[in-house]
């Protein structure tokens, strides 16, 4: 009966406002877990590298896939791990690309243009973020859609800067020593490198305490608040990160395509990036990569041979939503886990596949408004 619990003797009687604990020293190394990751990464590079070095159509196709995969992974970070599924990622992709194109139009070199674009992306994310993260669930879908439409409108009508519907050309790409991104093959491998870096960074983010808090927020945001989390700040940070990767993909898009026009930011394109992430599997990080591959194949390969490819894409997507709501990656992982179990070891931690069921399951028995007062929560 004498089991005083662990923290009791450390609890100080005079508990005054705390300014938070000491900042942790943060080494720049994340530990990937499981040999699956290494094997997967190796297989991935082995698959993409030959196609990229070959150049031409297939090289270009894979480059496009990688670029959209970065944007889709960024969307997944917010949507799959933070429960906020965005419908505006293509608009940020466009923003990143326009950042480069407009800077170069005003005479800056490619490297400076990249820097300016990154700053612009972060600034816009920081300014728009508070608006977007005021709402969650379906409210967030609607809000990001509307904000995306505004960015699209801006690109379309601010002709003096954006070139209007014709878009802007990006006539030269950065050069760094022997690496010349004006050469398609160099560009492709640069995209691969940025992709790998992004994937690694996002994976690190996901497994960090911050990533954990995002997942906790999907379970029960209010509880997180009474555990000391400024949840809106967390959503905000997650939103900025997500937008950043959208913009980063846009920078690559600009250099590899040589042109950016408002079409890339319209309703359709915004929906498509969301579909990539969802089709692959929200909350899996690698699923959206697979989603990008599948959707780009539909859009840019199948469309050459099949008239009604859009119907096919829609039907496949609906079928996935109905029968495999955790996405293609979730399906693959389920299979792998079953296989893994037979081989005697679990394949992956299964805690992250329920992004789509983020809605609070708890009935509000309390008849009273137990919400957050006047904080606007468009609940879904």
């Amino acid at each position, binding site marked *: 009966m004498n089991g005083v619990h662990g923290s009791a003797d450390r609890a100080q009687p005079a508990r005054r406002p705390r300014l938070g604990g000491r900042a942790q020293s943060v080494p720049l190394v994340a*530990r990937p877990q499981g*040999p699956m990751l*290494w*094997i997967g*990464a*190796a*297989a991935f*590079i*082995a*698959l993409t*590298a*030959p*196609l990229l*070095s*070959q150049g*031409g*159509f297939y090289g*270009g*196709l894979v480059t*496009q896939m990688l670029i959209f995969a970065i944007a889709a992974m960024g969307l997944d970070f917010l949507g799959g791990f933070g429960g906020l599924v965005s419908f505006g990622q293509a608009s940020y992709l466009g923003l990143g690309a326009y950042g480069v194109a407009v800077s170069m139009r005003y005479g800056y070199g490619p490297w400076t243009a990249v820097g300016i674009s990154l700053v612009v992306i972060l600034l816009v994310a920081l300014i728009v973020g508070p608006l977007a993260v005021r709402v969650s669930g379906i409210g967030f879908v609607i809000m990001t859609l509307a904000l995306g439409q505004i960015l699209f*409108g801006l690109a*379309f*009508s601010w*002709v*003096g800067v954006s*070139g*209007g*519907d*014709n*878009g802007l*050309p990006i006539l030269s790409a950065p050069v760094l020593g022997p690496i010349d991104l004006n050469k398609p093959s160099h560009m492709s491998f640069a995209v691969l490198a940025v992709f790998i870096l992004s994937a690694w960074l996002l994976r690190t983010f996901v497994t960090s305490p911050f990533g954990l808090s995002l997942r906790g927020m999907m379970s029960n945001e209010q509880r997180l608040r009474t555990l000391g989390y400024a949840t809106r700040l967390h959503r905000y940070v997650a939103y900025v990160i997500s937008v950043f990767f959208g913009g980063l993909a846009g920078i690559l*898009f600009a250099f590899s*395509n*040589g*042109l950016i*026009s408002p*079409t*890339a930011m319209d309703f*359709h*394109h915004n929906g498509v990036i969301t579909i990539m992430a969802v089709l692959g599997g929200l909350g899996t990080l690698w699923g959206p990569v697979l989603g990008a591959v599948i959707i780009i194949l539909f*859009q*840019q*390969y199948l*469309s*050459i041979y099949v*008239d009604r*490819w*859009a119907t096919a894409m829609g039907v496949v997507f609906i079928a996935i939503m109905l029968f495999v709501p955790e996405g293609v990656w979730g399906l693959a992982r389920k299979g792998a886990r079953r296989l893994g179990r037979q081989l005697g070891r679990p394949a992956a931690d299964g805690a992250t596949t329920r992004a789509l069921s983020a809605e609070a399951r708890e009935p509000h028995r309390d008849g009273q408004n137990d919400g957050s007062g006047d904080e606007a929560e468009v609940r879904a």
Partner: protein
Amino acid sequence: MPRIERRLRVGLAVTAALVVAATSACASKAGGSTSDPIKVAHPLPLTGVYAANGKDLQSGFEIGLKEFGSEVNGRKIEVTFADTQGDPATALTTVRKLIQDGAQVVQGPMATNEIAAVAPLLAQNGIPVNDLGLCSAAQLDSWAKTGNGFTSGYSCDQTALVAAEWAYNEMKWRHITLPALDYSWGWATAGGFKSAFEKLGGKIDKEIWIPNTAADLSSYVTQIPKDTDAVFAAVAGAFSVKFINAYKSFGLTGKIPVFGVTPLIDGSILPTMDPAATEGVYAGAQYCDGIDTPENKKFVETYHAANKRYPGYYAEAAYVRAQVLVSALKARNGDASDHKAMAKAMKQVTINAPRGPVSISDKSFSPIQNIYICQVKMVNGELRSIPIKTYEKVPPQGNVLDYATWEKNFKRYTQARP
């Protein structure tokens, strides 16, 4: 920690093995052999907002090949119609694929931004390209530099220049109100009209810019002043339908004459238009379906049989592109392998198209051709677009402006509002 290192080593070994396997698999890929067919790439939008126009292009081109021959000197003309979705990024990937598959001639994609997206790739490969129209300064520069591109369609403001001449000289209109779509095509058209009309001494009462995201045109139509002589509407596609309908419903039809350029009364939209609103509308056009040439009669007949309606300018432009292609191939005895020679042959073609005689200007690489003033009339219970006046062999700069002025204006107005 040693465990991780071991994993790393295993991972690297696996990577190496897979890379070797995949590369060797790829190395067995066949190199491009010069096989018999002449490969023509035709990227066009078959889904998305411009799908209908894309289908018209396809139909026109197919009819053209049937008419002029899909075989030259024993070589078959093999055309790939590939969907660009009206999206420049997709257009670029698609064209890359078509080039890789050995395309020797490209019929340029449709939208101006698609054309701009693929232009550098085509220039880099030197592949001959016949674009639908000349609507950007970048095209003009690129064609002058690399010589691989031109258009057998029209330069964007050619029709507007003639419409201005007709309005001032024939109709004696002096005050014009100018509603126009607020993007490059609208600027170029409105800009061309304005510069010619003002040079002649006319006055623009008001410019009304319509964003091409506008769904409802009522607030724009109701801004038209009641005392203006006529309205020149630089609108196209769905906006033509909306504009003409709104014009009538606000009681302007019959009170203030309205005219525009080709797409205002194009054959592709006439069947669904309200006759009471549309009859009597004029347009300066390089093509309308009522043109009275034997070539056009034949084309209209074939097109009508296939599509159950009269052709519009997209279909005719594609038909003409087929005609240009086949004529050039005949001149080269079916040899399209030399890009430079092929491009040159295509630009030197002079043909009798449905729209009349067409030759390509060596300054702006766009057609010298007849420009018509067409009017919508009811013929046998159907709305048709009938020429009421013909301006023969109009150069790209029109009859009012000199070439230098035109080039300066064109480069400006395709990038900003006039």
